[in-house]
């Protein structure tokens, strides 16, 4: 039964390659037409022309565009993404550092989001057009409609400045910064590994608010999708069959209907997880969270092409990866597509 999966995946791989090529072109175009002048960012406002031109040459900007593209592709193919102007570090190394911060946040958020969204979505579907449905729908639409940067600011004001329940900006209290050995760059893991429980506590304290907000907004999406998938399934004849068998409502819902939306849900959760990256750009700005989103935006603003292009590429890859995974999950878990 697995046999069909392989050629399909091979076909997919081809498709992905094409998409990747497109990504490369797109990122290059974005990188090159940026009006921000990275040289100026490097040499500063008062630099002489000699200095400026010196750096301009160092960055390879004096070469014709096609050459730059050629070198770009060649470098990318050899996994050389260059160094970031802002950090002076290889971009990949930077990303390996900032991505975990975002992933940590996003994972925390998706756990909240899915943990909240899926049961609520099912509850709404089961109670379609009754008050729980309305309440859940409105709540989830609110989550979908709120500008997360705004909610983040307000929440920070209330819960940090006002009530003092949670930590403020950053991943941990300022003075713990630099005290945790960096093994995985996942702070919660690193601090636990090092047995620094006060840092761990501080980290939890700091992550809880942004993660809840992100979680809420992604739960909005998950709830809605769960509800509509579930409604689709509840209208299917096999659900009637299950009821005819005398199965209780719970069993009908969870074993039969829910069983059939599991794979779809994985896709949705994967997508939601991916788009948390998007929410992260804004929420990281609000919470001074040193993650991927901040890295991307701050590099964007100074025209750090290597970094921006790589970030965009990485996001694209993550999305392609997530799509691929959910595709494969479909094939593996849905007997009909085997």
């Amino acid at each position, binding site marked *: 039964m697995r046999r069909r999966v392989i050629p399909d995946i091979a076909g997919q791989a081809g498709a992905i390659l094409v998409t990747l090529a497109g990504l490369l072109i797109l990122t290059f175009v974005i990188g090159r037409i940026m009006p921000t002048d990275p040289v*100026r960012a490097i040499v500063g406002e*008062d630099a*002489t022309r000699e200095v400026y031109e010196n750096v301009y040459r160092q960055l390879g900007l004096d070469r014709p565009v096609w050459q730059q593209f050629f070198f770009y592709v060649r470098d990318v193919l050899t996994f050389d993404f260059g160094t970031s102007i802002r*950090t002076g570090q290889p971009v990949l190394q930077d990303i390996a550092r900032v991505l975990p911060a975002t992933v940590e946040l996003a994972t925390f958020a998706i756990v909240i989001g899915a943990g909240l969204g899926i049961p609520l979505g099912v509850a709404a579907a089961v109670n379609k057009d009754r008050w729980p449905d309305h309440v859940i729908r409105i709540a989830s639409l609110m989550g979908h409609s709120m500008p997360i940067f705004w909610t983040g600011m307000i929440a920070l004001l209330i819960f940090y400045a006002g009530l003092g329940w949670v930590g403020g900006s950053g991943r941990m209290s300022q003075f713990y910064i630099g005290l945790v050995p960096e093994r995985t760059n996942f702070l919660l893991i690193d601090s636990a590994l090092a047995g620094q429980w006060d840092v761990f506590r501080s980290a939890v304290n700091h992550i809880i608010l942004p993660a809840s907000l992100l979680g809420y907004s992604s739960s909005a999406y998950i709830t809605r999708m769960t509800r509509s998938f579930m409604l689709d399934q509840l209208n299917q004849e096999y659900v009637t069959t299950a009821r005819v068998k005398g199965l209780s409502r719970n069993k009908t819902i969870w074993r039969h209907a829910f069983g059939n939306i599991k794979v779809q849900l994985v896709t949705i959760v994967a997508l939601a997880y991916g788009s948390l990256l998007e929410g992260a750009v804004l929420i990281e700005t609000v919470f*001074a969270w*040193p993650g991927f989103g901040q890295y991307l935006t701050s590099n964007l603003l*100074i025209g750090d092409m290597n970094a921006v292009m790589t970030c965009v590429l990485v996001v694209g890859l993550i999305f392609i990866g997530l799509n691929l995974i959910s595709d494969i999950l479909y094939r593996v878990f849905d007997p009909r597509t085997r």
Partner: protein
Amino acid sequence: ETPDDQLVVGFNMNNVLTLDPAAITGADAVQILNNVYDTIVRLDPQTRELIPSVAESWEISEDNRSITFHIDPDATFASGNPVTAEDVAYSLRRPIQLNLAQSTWLVSRGYTADNIEEMTEVVDNKTLRLHLPQPDDPRLVMMTLTINGPGSILDKTLVEEHAEDDMGTAWLTNNSAGSGAFTLNQWRANEFVILTRNEDYWGDAPEMARVLMRHLPESQSQRLALEQGDLDIGYSLAAADLRALEENEDIIVETVPSAGFYYLAVSMKNEILADKKVREALRYLIDYDGINDAIMPYFGTKRQVPINSYAFAAAEDPGYELDVERAKELLAEAGYPDGFDTTLRVISTQQFIDSATAIQATLKQAGINAEIITGDGGQIYGAMRSREFDLLVGRGGGGVSPHPDSNLRAVVYNPDNSDDAGLTNYQGWRTSFYDEELNGMIEDALVEGDVETQRQMYSDIQNYMQDAVISIQPFSERVVTAAFQSDVDGVIVDVWSSRFEDVTKDR
């Protein structure tokens, strides 16, 4: 509450792209490096007088063409290596030889890749003679060397150990090789800098074992953190927050003058604006008091002369006021009784925009319709660099060294007004302002050996500029403000001279 032996500082490190002293730009990087690298001499933060640092003493030659520095025999680098004349010479040569951002300072004093070897004469192990390649004011040269960047003293041995063919640029981006009170432990772009105490510091050991400089660009975040005790010092706070913090008993807010001005720049390429009468009218169309009272607190104080008030020979304000009638008269004389349409560029940072909007409003009263064009630094100053603008609200104008020449060169000096010259580091060139006589006066004043004569000459220059109505019209002198916990002592507010070695916590 922060720990007793740790200092947590909030500032904005958006402009910090490297920690290589030869390649840094802007004050924020200088603020970091001040703690890591010593310079050969220093400016006293209060008096702005030259005081010893790595050099325990120095002599200026009779003809004002060389300075001999005697290096403190105790001075050692954090690596344990002693500081030698060879190190100092290496450090001064390095920016020029690499042609990196900080070379600008030295280039403007006439040093070039060709002459720098010869100009930095190692007399003996502890004596360095610095020759001046052109007639100059040696004090100004020394002031330049107080700045971390051109003046940072690097541990040659250590740098060479880590150098490829880049004189260690790659390595120095993230590492330090200085003799300062702290060493660079870790730098994360746009996140933080961690400095750790240099346990073998040759001066008085700092009390703080660790300094965390945290990138907190949001003023309100800094304020919250200060109020919650998560932060000891906040360096980039906005006016509203400073005002609020001033109410707070546990927080001290301190303001000091700093380098540069907020100005209205006028492009002489624009026919209308090239008319002196029009420019003079503009001078009367700025609401100096309004802007400085409402927008500028904590950012600037009223100043109408492009020489920093603390600089040598700085003149008093000529006393321009918002005077729409006078401006209208001048405009009418110039042939624009009904005003004209123009553009006003400004970077989208609060106090800039606010000032621009205020100026736009007053211009309007005299019939001048200025459309505001906003953008980021690259776009706005970019337009200025390519000399394509009409009016522009900006900030700058030298003054890091408390010497009028520093301001004048930045603001009005323009040795070559052709488009090809590309003298983008001179505001004079950017605004296409060219006055040969003024250029000469500036050059002469600088090399005048007698201090009193020199003072008079600078005074004349300032009067001359006022008559000529130069293209840069300052309305505010830059000040900087920091807020810190009241139990923290020894904070230096001006970022150019800020150091944490004397900071103590009084708990």
